[in-house]
């Protein structure tokens, strides 16, 4: 059976937020929302769990710090210790004050870049990726809520969405078999 989706377009972020809350209260399933800018509180209203990117960043930072410590210990203490300006090079602990700047820089380097790469991969963002917003105006000033038709009566559902303040509603027939 073909599953239908309904695209409801709103002209205002406050209106959209209100509509999302009403739609969820009626137990309709919102499958996606496209907005031109981050609407404060929308992710909670849609019921999204918080993102864990900050945690990954912390872990990547730890990796960077470990790499820096391992690298400088191997190069300056183990592999080829040198007397440079009388700075003690016999143990890592004694030489460490001179290594702190690079330990910090590598922590930031790993935490920042690997987090951004994770973000791009998780959100499927890369060059030559095709945009998937169903209406070009959703990057300008329109807000699009996609609701699953499932086995609801589409007449009632469209009427309901109009009442939430949608300015345009279109039914998208899904051709794929499930």
């Amino acid at each position, binding site marked *: 059976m073909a599953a239908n989706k309904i695209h409801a377009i709103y002209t205002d972020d406050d209106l959209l937020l209100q509509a999302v809350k009403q739609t969820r209260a009626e137990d309709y399933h919102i499958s996606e929302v496209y907005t031109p*800018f981050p609407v404060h509180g929308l992710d909670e209203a849609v019921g999204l769990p918080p993102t864990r*990117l900050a945690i990954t960043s912390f872990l990547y930072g730890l990796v960077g710090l470990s790499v820096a410590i391992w690298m400088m210990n191997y190069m300056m203490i183990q592999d080829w210790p040198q007397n440079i300006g009388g700075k003690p090079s016999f143990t890592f602990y004694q030489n460490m004050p001179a290594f702190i700047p690079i330990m910090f820089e590598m922590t*930031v*380097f790993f935490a920042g870049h690997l987090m951004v790469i994770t973000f791009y991969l998780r959100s499927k963002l890369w060059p030559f990726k095709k945009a998937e917003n169903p209406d070009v105006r*959703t*990057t300008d000033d329109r807000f699009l809520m996609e609701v699953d038709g499932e086995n609801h009566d589409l007449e009632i559902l469209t009427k309901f969405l109009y009442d939430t303040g949608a*300015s345009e509603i279109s039914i998208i027939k899904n051709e794929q078999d499930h």
Partner: protein
Amino acid sequence: MSSHYEAPIREPLVLGEKSYHDISVDIGAPVLGKASKSWWIVFTIALVAFLWGLGCIIYTVSTGIGVWGLNKTIGWAWDITNFVWWVGIGHAGTLISAVLLLFRQKWRMAVNRSAEAMTIFAVVQAGLFPIIHMGRPWLAYWVLPLPNQFGSLWINFNSPLLWDVFAISTYLSISLVFWWTGLLPDFAMLRDRTASPFQKKIYGILSFGWSGRVKDWQRFEEVSLVLAGLATPLVLSVHTIVSFDFATSVVPGWHSTIYPPYFVAGAIFSGFAMVQTLLIIMRKVLHLESYITVTHIEYMNKVILLTGGIVGVAYLIEFFLGWYSGVPYEDYVYLSFGAATGPYWWAFWALIFCNMVAPLSLWVKSLRRNIVWTFIVALVINIGMWFERFDIIVIDLSKDRLTSSWTMFQPTFVDIGTFIGTIGFFFVLFLLYARTFPVIAQAEVKTILKSSGESFKRLRAEHGDDHSHVQQVEQYPGDAGPAANVENSQLRGSFSPDEDELVQLDYGLHQGKIDELISAVGTFDATVQERDNLKRIMGIGPAVEKKLHQLGIYTFDQVSRMTDREYELLKEIFGVFPSNPEMDDWAGQALILKNQK
């Protein structure tokens, strides 16, 4: 809705009656329109300077560092001066985008994009100097910890110069991804608004297929916050480490424990001065006065006052401690009685005047809000901060511990040419950026429109804080475009004429001009012709379209016949006209749209 509440005492950050759509139009206009003549003139000058500098660099590398004015006493001069100057300038962007994000300063949103661009371009210039100074730049990769043929003789992690390599490359690359991540939604806006298939393709690639899903935005905001948290200590570390280049040495005047905080404050000071210099011109040329307001300029002036004050106090401390130490060598350092009266007196007083005296004028509110004065002060600070680094490096080296080797520094044409070349390179990059990138983070500005927009502030003042903020947007259902990922899309407008066009216009006064205009572009016959959606032309928003409708201009065909003369007539008829038809090339755009029908 009270969630948009902001204290009424705060000045609006977006002026005029702006809707979300107006923001897209205004920010997209410079990119989607044509370059003006003045842009080409400035670009050509910058390009010539850049090529001249490139010639000097090639001459340096092929002949040797001996072509510079360095001597046995002064082994570092303009190259390191320029390096520190550029790195310092490159500090304002990340400060604005990262530190002010953590402090939730809304005014940063209008200026962060350009400040970050300036940062990246300035750090690129800075990076050139150490690489040229290596003498054999093709061996620049030797600064990396790579195994090599000398039995893996590793690089020296005890050296501040190597810390610089790590700090600056981390700073440059993190700034770049921070900037680019913020650009994705704005590139997507341009991609979805442009009428040209070529631009659609380019901005489609640059936007990485950004679609604006709610989950994407949630991650986007988290990533921005974490990057800001990482970039804040990073930006402080970069100039701290640059100051270590001097502070860990044993040269009098360099060996100073207050260098790190003093250098960081000086870097922010010079960076903000450069931001002012660039943005004051940019807001004028690109017509962004509604977004980069006098209030923004005043806020940046306050940062200049604060950091300039820190720098001034640091100068006084340096001067006092040099004298108080009783060490004779300290009599000749860059902040000392010896420097003020010695052969480099002019450099000493340039430093004092430009960095300590001139910025004090900003304590006066009327001068702080005066755009011309701000521009002059910003230029003076740029010059002063160059002298600060010149003084630290050249004056301190010119009188070393051996009286017989005291000397002065004479720059050669190569020194000067290389410096001018980097300024040219910087402006080449910035001018290209201003033509092709969304110069204001429009997605972020839209988030503050309801709290800090002038019209919404007035709404709350007149109707109370709980009044609905829902915007009444003019409907244009004919615009309902196909999916953004469908190529060769056709957008066509056909809608019934609405008769609510109530723009004030004195028909009697302008009858002659209106007749002339209509005779040039042709008349519209509602019985046989269909109206086009003129808003599809970049630069025409709902308000301008209404004005055109009033005159009887309804179709792309009519607009495509406009020339400079007709643009002039439009401006004369309406007096204040919120668009710039020449720059956006309405006629050219209309011709394309007409042919697509």
